[in-house]
């Protein structure tokens, strides 16, 4: 039992570091998009497309990093499609998101059919646990470079939004389209770029799924990380660095089931698998209010939540 007391938390930490990267990239992407005043609910489809495209390219070229790049590019294309559809009058961004979720997963499953069997070269990892003799510690501290890039990006985005002109323009568009227009900025163009950038990041997050952990392509690869990203941004109060903390927390919650399974506790496996969703829902319930808008929420997002 005492062994389990060490193994389980260690497996959760390791799991959190492995599982959190897709959460991180999707939530950062959604954060960028929402800062400009638009919600992209279709990132789930973008994530799955990115996972498929990244895997396919890595398989064909032998370069996992090229796969990551193409995954981001495909994500950006989906972001552009979302942005274009939403720029049409009378078209609702939430509904477009649902539609692109259906289209993205459908296309990825269609085009990814031949990729289910093959293998692709995986992204490299840093062995930060090399000092330890314990196998579990080393496994837990095997950190993927892409995750480190995501951590750096979270801090960089905070600086971008707080300290730079570009960040200020995006935030202005997100707070008041009229004010931004009065200042001479093209609201549609800013939102289009922000949504494309958000799609790029979500695509990169997807490539992490197929190129590192779990590290293969199949139709059950994503379990809603793309959607949870949207909820994570609310939880993080539209702050990129808090997106990082939230992603680690949710990665840990997602690692709960496999960690318990590793020590032989298999009853309730599915229920532990639902932990991230229950956690998201509980946090949204606890932090939302029917009467006031949330602190930190871009005003152009309206009363949507």
């Amino acid at each position: 039992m005492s062994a389990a007391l060490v193994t389980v938390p260690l497996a959760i930490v390791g799991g959190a570091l492995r599982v959190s990267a897709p959460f991180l990239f999707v939530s950062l992407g959604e954060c960028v998009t929402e800062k400009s005043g638009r919600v992209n609910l279709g990132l789930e489809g973008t994530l799955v497309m990115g996972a498929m495209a990244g895997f396919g390219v890595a398989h064909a070229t032998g370069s996992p990093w090229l796969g990551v790049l193409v995954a981001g590019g495909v994500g950006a294309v989906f972001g552009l499609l979302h942005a274009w559809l939403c720029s049409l009058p009378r078209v609702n961004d939430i509904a477009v998101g649902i539609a692109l979720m259906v289209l993205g997963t459908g296309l990825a499953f269609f085009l990814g059919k031949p990729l289910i069997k093959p293998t692709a070269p995986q992204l490299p990892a840093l062995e930060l646990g090399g000092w330890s003799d314990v196998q579990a510690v080393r496994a837990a501290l095997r950190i993927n470079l892409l995750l480190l890039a995501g951590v750096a990006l979270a801090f960089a985005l905070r600086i971008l939004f707080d300290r730079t002109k570009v960040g200020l323009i995006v935030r202005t568009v997100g707070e008041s389209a009229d004010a931004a227009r009065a200042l001479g900025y093209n609201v549609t163009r800013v939102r289009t770029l922000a949504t494309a950038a958000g799609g790029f990041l979500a695509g990169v997050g997807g490539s992490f799924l197929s190129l590192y952990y779990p590290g293969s392509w199949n139709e059950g690869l994503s379990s809603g990380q793309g959607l949870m990203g949207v909820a994570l941004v609310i939880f993080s109060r539209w702050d990129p660095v808090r997106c990082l903390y939230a992603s680690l927390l949710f990665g840990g919650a997602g690692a709960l089931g496999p960690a318990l399974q590793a020590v032989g506790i298999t009853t309730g496996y599915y229920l532990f698998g639902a932990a991230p969703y229950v956690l998201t829902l509980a946090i949204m319930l606890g932090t939302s209010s029917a009467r006031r808008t949330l602190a930190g929420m871009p005003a152009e997002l309206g009363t949507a939540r």
Partner: protein
Amino acid sequence: MGRSLEKAIIPVAALAVSLVLFGAFVAAAGANPLDVYYDMYRGGFGTWFSFQNTLQRAAPLMLTALCALIPAHLGLIVIGGEGALLLGALGAVLAGRALGSAPPILAATFMMVAGAAVGGVWVALSGAMRTLRGVNETISSLLLNYIAIALFNHLVEGPLRDPVSLNKPSTFPIADAATIGNIPGMDVHWGLVFGLLACGLSYFLVMHSVHGFAARMIGGNVRAAALSGIDVARLTIVLCFVAGASAGIAGAVEVGAVQHTANATLIAGYGYTGVLVAFLARQHPLAAIPVSLLLGGINASGGLLQRTEHLPDATVKVLQGILFVVILASETLYGRYDWKILGRAAERKSAAVVPHAEPLAPAAGAEPTQVKGVA
């Protein structure tokens, strides 16, 4: 002027555009688009046999479509039909087992009531969180879908599992008395009748009742509705319950008429396809009937496309995605042209183009997306 003409032309044109785009896609994938179209027709509508298959698949879609359609009139985008269907199926299995000795009609009725109650509560949760706590209903209903799938898998593979079901974990079967049979003279179960009835009743509820009117007021402007004395919270929760109950009945029917147990076959995306049906029908309960038939037929033809054209099973999903995107994009065309004048004198085309109002404020999830056009 010409508004009803517009309501007919735009969806049909959008459907045609979707089919052309889909044809281009399958052509790029190496298939002959004309063969694909023909197979879709043959597999979904071509023969009495395939049409009965389509009817059978359309029945749950009518019911899950209502799960998205009814809240849409409140200005809510609810996609919780999948979870409500699954938990409704579980509720129906429990009821259908408990009532082995009851008279058949009573047992089947009780089973459907149980499915409706469980599904209703599940979606009412989203409505309650929205109206009482301001939680976005789209995200909460999606999260509830994942939670429902986890609960479903846990119960089907755990406490409720029939030890006999080895390869395909299933619950204990329902009692014979609780099974739902076929409509006399057809190879289609009674679920089709329930679906048609539900769409008809929803039509009166949403379009011709005080509650429906109040719902559309809430969808238009929550504050104005509250000021005019409408109990916003209660109506929101009740209508979300009705919506979820409809999806729950879909689950109960699948159990009672098709599966006779609950198993992973039920996780077939009926709930998500129902959302697509609701949007394609532009949230009109009666339009949901032909749209369900159309999508039921498309789904039914999936197997034939796999066999004859060697296209993957996701082909149907691609078409659904294209349809969804094109239909939403076509929203922008409503009210833009005066169809009557367009039809009468094409040469006066320039005069027919009515300048469109400024776009709606972006990102307002609470906007009554489709409701205005239908009213």
